[in-house]
């Protein structure tokens, strides 16, 4: 059984790869969307923070002997705390300025962080093993499904949906949405909006670090892992539209799949297809597929 002359193993294999890439796109663009909604800042440090999550996992293992499962919890907390410090000391001075200033500051920070890691660890990447519980895979008959990859897709879906639920369906989320629209009024109701902004940034950064830990066994731990990914993630965000939570999730997974399909049907375009879509979306619907025009 072939689809347009493509054996199903190849098709499904690429779709799975697309789904895994999509899982990372979704988690990272979700964090960017949350941060942008609340802080009005395009967090270009996101890729570096994702990389720091992977390195945190590596450090925890090599210096403290704490394995993957600990890293999934501790790395986001640690890197999130660094994010909180960045917000407190730097970003908070930029909220009243144009988006561009936040973008430039976070872009500069990303380069500094990346440079420091590269200086210390080189560019070849450090190995990080798949945890014992998730080694091996399932033979589905038509393809072999590595357990770890299935886990990444499932856990990122769960994290994305939990974040969506938190923001769209809870009281805390109502504070966040309201503060996105009119922070001064929400604060005048008695809510500590500056603290909420700090924690939101910390949460978005923690999400990036969490994705970094998930990525460590797949892509290795490499100082440049974030900068490679973040450009694509920004394209995903532009396509989905800034500020829409569900939009970020759907676009992330969707574009991962499209990229996978392109690898099957026209491999030459696989590394550019997302940017072609971005250009088209910008021309037709500049606010993005799910974006609200202000």
């Amino acid at each position, binding site marked *: 059984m072939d689809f347009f002359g493509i054996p199903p193993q190849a098709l499904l294999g690429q779709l799975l790869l697309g789904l895994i890439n999509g899982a990372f796109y979704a988690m990272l663009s979700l964090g960017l969307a949350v941060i942008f909604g609340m802080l009005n800042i395009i967090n270009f440090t996101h890729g570096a923070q994702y990389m720091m999550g992977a390195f945190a996992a590596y450090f925890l293992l090599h210096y403290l002997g704490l394995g993957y499962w600990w890293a999934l919890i501790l790395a986001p907390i640690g890197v999130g705390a660094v994010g909180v410090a960045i917000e407190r000391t730097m970003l908070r001075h930029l909220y009243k300025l144009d988006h561009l200033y936040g973008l430039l500051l976070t872009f500069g920070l990303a380069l500094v962080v990346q440079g420091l890691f590269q200086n210390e660890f080189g560019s070849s990447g450090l190995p990080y093993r798949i945890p014992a519980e998730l080694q091996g895979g399932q033979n589905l008959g038509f393809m072999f499904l590595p357990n770890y990859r299935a886990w990444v897709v499932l856990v990122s879906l769960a994290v994305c949906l939990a974040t969506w639920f938190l923001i769209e369906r809870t009281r805390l989320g*109502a504070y966040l*949405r309201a503060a996105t*629209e009119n922070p001064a*009024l*929400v*604060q*005048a*109701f*008695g809510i*500590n909006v500056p603290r909420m902004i700090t924690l939101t940034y910390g949460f978005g950064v923690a999400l990036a670090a969490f994705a970094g830990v998930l990525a460590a066994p797949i892509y290795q731990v490499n100082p440049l892992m974030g900068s490679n990914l973040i450009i694509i993630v920004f394209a995903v965000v532009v396509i989905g539209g800034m500020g829409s939570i569900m939009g970020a999730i759907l676009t992330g997974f969707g574009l991962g799949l499209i990229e996978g399909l392109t690898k099957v049907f026209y491999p030459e375009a696989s590394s550019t297809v997302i940017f072609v879509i971005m250009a088209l979306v910008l021309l037709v619907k500049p606010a993005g597929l799910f974006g609200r025009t202000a």
Partner: protein
Amino acid sequence: MPEPLLKVAGLNAFYGESHVLHGVDLEVGAGELVTLLGRNGAGKTTTLKSVVGMIADRRGSVAYQGHELIELPSHVIARLGLAFCPEERGIFASLDVGENLMLPPEIAPGGMGLDDIFRLFPNLKERLRSQGTKLSGGEQQMLAIARILRTGARLLLLDEPTEGLAPVIIEQIGACIGELKAKGFTILLVEQNFRFATEVADRFYVMENGRIVDEIGRADLDRRRTDIEAYLGV
């Protein structure tokens, strides 16, 4: 005279370089309904916003129950028992009516229960799942008032609650404000609609160019009517 609930003295406020309030003095006693009158741009809204801490650059003194508020951030001020209802109503588009209503956190016991609120504003109960900004102007105003009644705040600052509303809705808002007063809320009201203000207020301050220029008691209203018309330019 007992210490007033709210005592504003020598209040100055600035928007960047522009000096908007030039030493505002006013007092509101517990249970009183005081109205700020004045033309557009006189500084009425800025006065309310300065009291609740929404104007970053403000100087002078704002005392609530003897607490000095001038240095406090707005979320701390709110927790002392002040609630603000903005002129533009501030209904959140990304929240439904129920979420808008439940948004302001409870700051003290003794807030109005939902049953009482729905008795005052029956329209809201039927629209709880609608998007906040899909309500009519009048319903949005009711929602904006309703949500600050829940919180246990005792001093309500209402900025032009009748602006742009139909007479029948204004009447409903007036009845509501009367009922709030009867329940013991203290209210500082900004109002352009002088007729509406005379029906509900105990006392009036007139503002011009960022200053209080006159104070008129309810009893003197008839005698001072021509002065007031001159102030408001009607």
